């Protein structure tokens, strides 16, 4: 058999094999909006109205994704997702994509006015502000409920603590770190590798790496993956959809602020002049803080630190694990899309919000 024929056969196999894995789709789709930030970036807000025959709740809900993610992973589980759970309970739900996510236009690598040069500060100061203003304008509500996973909670810790945000009625965070008191070996290694990459790359190609594994079966190292989610608690199709549809490339400046956090133990502004962590004490809104027992990023220890330092009179800490009768000890992303996350996580969140949205 000639080498040409072998190449042809291999190509056909590759296409068939890839195609079988490229079929990740999400059927739960809302209405797309693109609010503008004060510095002229487009964001994406996906609106899901409450389901029929439900009692409307007091405040709408904004849900915000984490680092290197986009809004899609909140919908991957379709009717078992947090979005579906909330709209089934009468909530007006708005899924937020922070700047730099492709549905609002992918930034350029080197040229143009929209590049991957934004920071965590931009997310917290401009994007969150634009999103809240837009939702309040559309819904005519006085305040919003905020649910943030990982960095999606951190941006609001920053806004509430340092920038005196007063339009958030209730706060739910899932695996959101805001200090790094005991950095593990692999997190340190990742951080030091980032420091090198941040100097040479115009963008952190996290989405490209995830697609390499999900669509082309080029495996990523197992250990860093385990820092993000617990495979044994994640269905295969969900895992595939996470990598294929819900990862995003990230700006080096955002990663720089995380690396500085790991180095100093605190979340600092990009110029390192302000400690956002030190301002946690200014947070007074009712808060539900959730950590996964197996989470290696937003660990229960870090969540305890936040719990101890915010001054809300109504605050609850919940460590998602078997000790509370849950099906599994949850990892970082499993909190949103774990095998039993609807029953274990979404229902307690909804119940907590229901108590505060009468």
């Amino acid at each position: 058999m000639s080498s040409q024929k072998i190449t042809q056969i291999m190509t056909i196999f590759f296409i068939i094999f890839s195609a079988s894995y490229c079929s990740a789709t999400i059927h739960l789709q809302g209405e797309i909006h693109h609010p503008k930030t004060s510095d002229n970036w487009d964001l994406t807000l996906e609106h899901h109205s409450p389901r029929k025959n439900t009692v409307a709740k007091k405040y709408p809900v904004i849900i915000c994704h984490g680092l290197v993610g986009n809004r899609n992973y909140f919908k991957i589980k379709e009717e078992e997702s947090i979005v579906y759970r909330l709209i089934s309970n009468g909530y007006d739900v708005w899924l937020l994509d922070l700047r730099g996510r492709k549905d609002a236009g992918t930034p350029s690598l080197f040229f143009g006015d929209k590049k991957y040069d934004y920071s965590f500060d931009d997310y917290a100061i401009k994007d969150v502000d634009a999103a809240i203003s837009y939702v309040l304008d559309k819904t005519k509500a006085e305040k919003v409920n905020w649910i943030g996973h990982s960095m999606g909670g951190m941006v609001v810790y920053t806004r509430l603590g340092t920038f005196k945000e007063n339009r958030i009625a209730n706060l739910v965070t899932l695996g959101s770190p805001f200090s790094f008191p005991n950095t593990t070996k692999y997190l340190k290694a990742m951080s030091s590798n980032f420091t090198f990459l941040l100097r040479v790359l115009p963008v952190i190609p996290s989405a490209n790496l995830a697609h390499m594994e999900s669509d082309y079966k080029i495996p990523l190292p197992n250990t860093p993956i385990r820092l993000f989610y617990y495979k044994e608690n994640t269905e295969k199709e969900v895992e595939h959809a996470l990598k294929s549809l819900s990862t995003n490339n990230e700006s080096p400046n955002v990663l720089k602020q995380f690396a500085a956090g790991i180095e100093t133990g605190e979340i600092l502004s990009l110029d390192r002049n302000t400690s956002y962590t030190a301002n946690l004490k200014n947070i007074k809104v009712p808060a539900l803080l959730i950590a996964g027992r197996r989470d290696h990023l937003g660990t229960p220890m870090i969540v305890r630190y936040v719990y101890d330092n915010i001054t809300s009179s109504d605050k609850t800490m919940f460590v998602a694990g078997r000790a509370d009768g849950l099906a599994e000890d949850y990892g970082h992303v499993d909190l949103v899309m774990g095998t039993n996350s609807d029953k274990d996580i979404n229902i307690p969140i909804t119940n907590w919000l229901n108590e505060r949205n009468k």
Partner: protein
Amino acid sequence: MNILIQFFQNTIFLPSTGKSKNPLAIFFTKQTLIRKKFFKFEVIALIFLLISCATQTPRNIPKHNFSSLLQVKEFTPKEPKLISPVVIYEPILLKESVLFRIEDKKEKGLIAYLNDKGYTVYLITSGEVSPNFKNHSLEFDSILNQIAQKHRNREVILGGTSLGGQAVLEYMTIPFDLNNYARVAKVFFIGTGIDYNYTGSFAEKSDQFGYEEKLVSELCPKGVKNHFCYKYIRLNNSLQKVDNSKKEMYYNRVPKIGNDYISRFHYSKLQLPYLFIYGKLDSISPEESIYPLFHKLRTGSKMDSRNTLYEASEANGQSIDYDHADLFLYPDVNKEVYYKLYRWLEK
């Protein structure tokens, strides 16, 4: 056929009948001779082993009458070093035998591991169903004194294991003016919960469900799902091959758990060097209960570098995320976790 028989005779069955030119035969001849020699060695070794087993007496563990309330057992190394002795309070939730797994030749448990490194270890046990740590503190103090005297007034190293570590924490609330403060060189905790002052903590649940002061056998009825053992003691790693009904044999009783040692912790004790080791999946003595004290030590003491918080987890390069039981029973715990303790003790 004859040729075939001759081949087999030459190769396997009759290696000594003349020199064969068949390379296979030469190979097997050598192998058989080696096996014969080795067999002799094996027999000698076996006889030696049988004799040594027959003459071996059970290890004599001296018990001291240092206290009328608490029992003190001494574990002396074969080659003791002139270093501080280690005093460990029993785990309580787990049976004390998990600390000296002498039935396991390869992995010996914490006490045997420390003995191997030359440390004399004293194990303190209460024997009560629900030990009163508050009442024990003065007794504890007196015991430390006597142990120090026995070791030429050398400072002692204090160790808290599992929920028994709360006895050490209680001791740390005693004011400075007691003479014995100077007797303690270092303090370490393995799997000890410290500050349970938050919503949904293990202490809160144990109060709510009436776990306190109960024997674990009452809390883990056989054939009932979702009981205490299922929720808090995964045992997936250390004892995964052990039958469910036998897992309970490693557990003892749930003591009355102190909620908050942070506010009562005496400032003078903040100056000591501390090591905290916790398992990532430990829901009994979880990381979030340990951190507040570590944070207080870090901000209240100038000895930052000597205070260490260590997570036994995959994220730190270990083979598993450790749970409560794994910290004492996982086969690789010596080289993955106790080694860190040894390095810290040697500093």
